[in-house]
């Protein structure tokens, strides 16, 4: 999607290894979010950020950490990947009031073997 990119698009990693997913935006939006999407669970919020160095937990934050050192970048780290973290991860951005909803990135498909 224009203005927001995620990398990598696909990744296969081994249990116990650290993994970092990157979200980059060019819209200068204040809010950034990480979601995971699993069959039967819809989209679940992992962490979100409301400004540089300002982050908070979502409903499924255990096992994940985030960092936002610049407005444009929001990193999601799995410190020690587990098979239960196999999922599709979406990053999203919104302006201050969310007036245009969230714009989602194309997603990262992560497989932990």
């Amino acid at each position, binding site marked *: 999607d224009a203005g927001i990119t995620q990398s990598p698009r696909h990744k296969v990693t081994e249990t116990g290894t650290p993994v970092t997913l990157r979200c980059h935006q060019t819209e200068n939006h204040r809010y950034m*979010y990480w*979601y995971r999407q699993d069959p039967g669970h*819809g*989209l679940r*919020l992992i962490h*979100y950020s*409301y400004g540089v160095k300002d982050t908070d937990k979502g409903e499924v934050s255990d096992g994940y950490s985030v960092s936002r050192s610049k407005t444009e970048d929001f990193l999601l780290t799995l410190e020690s990947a587990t098979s239960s973290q196999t999922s599709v991860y979406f990053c999203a951005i919104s302006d201050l009031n*969310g007036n*245009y909803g969230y714009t989602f990135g194309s997603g990262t498909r992560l497989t932990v073997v």
Partner: protein
Amino acid sequence: EDKVVQSPLSLVVHEGDTVTLNCSYEVTNFRSLLWYKQEKKAPTFLFMLTSSGIEKKSGRLSSILDKKELFSILNITATQTGDSAVYLCAVYTNAGKSTFGDGTTLTVKP
């Protein structure tokens, strides 16, 4: 705990039919309700609703919110095969968080 429930979970119709998708919610500090369409990839924004009783419309799609009864509906008239997708409802709070429903999978047959 915030909760969003969508119904039905899946729906199969034929082209030209009209469908109504439902979304009910229980959240603290409601700010807005959004509808998204998700095909094979990322969700795309359809509507944002913040006030009761004001219909939002875009072509054959329309949506309305009832903040008293805590629900919203998404209507699609004269359905087409291109409307086949998962439709997601999400509620956003003043705390900046969001809760998504599990989605309604709509299949439109020719």
